[in-house]
């Protein structure tokens, strides 16, 4: 079975650092024709803007060609074709598969039946490892290091897969976490127990103002309507936090605000032009990191 990237646990600390290094090379030299003649499938069973476009751009910048679909409407999946048959067929056509699927575990399953590497571009609320790697890349880029940082995660810590994966990946680098969330969206106990087991310190709060001034990274998240079965519950929490420029007067000079995007109201647009806003650059970094992931899995870096 070729090496795939399905969950952030699939990469060791060394591999994570290696990806970040190659990504930095790609940022300096944005087009490298190392995958000329290769074909990459981007198959998206669920909508996406940034992830799909950045994977496709990353493939193109490496010189590979891209095939795929961005929704299942005009594919044989509407005829009832199984995921297994779709993956078996696609993996015979291409050199690497990037896939997003609404069902959790779909990418793991695909990686076990495909003859080529699979990159998980999101499987429901489960894993989205390329997002985690680009978050790490952005943290390292803004702070000059990954070790001993205070990371304040804000918003939907219950359903937010980026939060869960990022805290697991950061655990390699002796972090100190703040978890800022409404009671309804607190970090699940399994993750807190996991952090306890690793001896990683964290504090929990409901107040965004509590730890704005002593954090190195504020990691804002959107409350994702699509994860709620109860819309009343969603209405209660959707606008719980709003980060505004006026709240940033006493933050640390090195502090940066990250957000996996898309954002709704949780970051006011007046924050965009401050030196603390880093989410657009973070999204750009996604392309370099995805170039690095593809090149690494295909054995070119």
């Amino acid at each position: 079975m070729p090496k795939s990237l399905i969950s952030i646990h699939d990469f060791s600390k060394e591999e994570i650092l290696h990806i970040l290094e190659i990504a930095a090379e790609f940022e300096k030299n944005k087009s490298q024709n190392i995958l000329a003649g290769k074909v990459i499938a981007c198959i998206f069973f669920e909508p996406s803007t940034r992830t799909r476009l950045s994977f496709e751009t990353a493939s193109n910048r490496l010189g590979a060609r891209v095939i795929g679909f961005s929704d299942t409407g005009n594919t044989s999946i509407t005829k009832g074709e199984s995921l297994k048959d779709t993956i078996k067929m696609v993996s015979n056509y291409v050199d690497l598969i990037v896939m997003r699927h609404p069902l959790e575990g779909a990418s793991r399953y695909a990686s076990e039946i495909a003859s080529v590497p699979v990159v998980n571009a999101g499987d429901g609320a489960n894993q989205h490892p390329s997002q985690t790697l680009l978050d790490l890349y952005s943290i390292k880029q803004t702070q000059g290091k990954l070790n001993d940082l205070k990371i304040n995660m804000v918003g939907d810590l219950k359903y937010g897969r980026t939060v869960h994966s990022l805290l697991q990946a950061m655990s390699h680098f002796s972090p100190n976490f703040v978890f800022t969330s409404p009671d309804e969206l607190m970090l699940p106990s399994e993750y807190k127990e996991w952090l306890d087991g690793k001896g990683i310190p964290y504090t929990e709060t409901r107040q965004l103002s509590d730890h704005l001034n002593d954090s190195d990274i504020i990691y804002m998240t959107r409350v994702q309507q699509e994860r709620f079965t109860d819309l009343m519950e969603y209405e209660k929490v959707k606008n719980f936090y709003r980060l505004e420029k006026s709240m940033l007067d006493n933050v640390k000079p090195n502090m940066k605000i990250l957000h996996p995007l898309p954002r709704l109201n949780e970051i006011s647009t007046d924050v965009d032009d401050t030196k603390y806003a880093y989410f657009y650059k973070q999204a750009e970094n996604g392309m370099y990191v995805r170039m690095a992931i593809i090149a690494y899995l295909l054995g070119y870096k």
Partner: protein
Amino acid sequence: MENLSEKHLKVSAIKNGTVLDHIPAEQLFRVLDILKLRDCKNQITIGFNLDSKQYGKKGIIKIAEKFFEDDELNYIALIAPKATVNIIKDFVVVEKKLLSIPESVIGAIKCANPVCVTNHEKIQTSFRTTVKDGEVLLKCHFCEKSTSNKEIQIVTNNR
């Protein structure tokens, strides 16, 4: 050696095979399912709601001419950890097996996560087990979510 052919037996003895005893009555049918006995062609005698000092009501299953792998039997530990397993040869108990929680569980139970891919495609389920505070947690190999042994559902053919 204990002789099972005593006259006060409520469920008739078998000559050769496996006897699963001390199953809590409410778990009896799940034990049948976890061992896939609905499809079994062997002679099976089942005692249900028998009086038991330990449980009040217990179940007993006797399967003639069938001997399970330890891995299969250990699945019972997930739903009836105090069940006993006796191997019978010529009406005599020749071995009592101790159940232990299996490290992995393949195919026998359903993932409790409704949006797990295994509940939508024909995929054999796969779990790793961990024990925490006396509760067994089964972590799905695919969706990475944990199911408690208290809420597990067994894969049956008529689901």
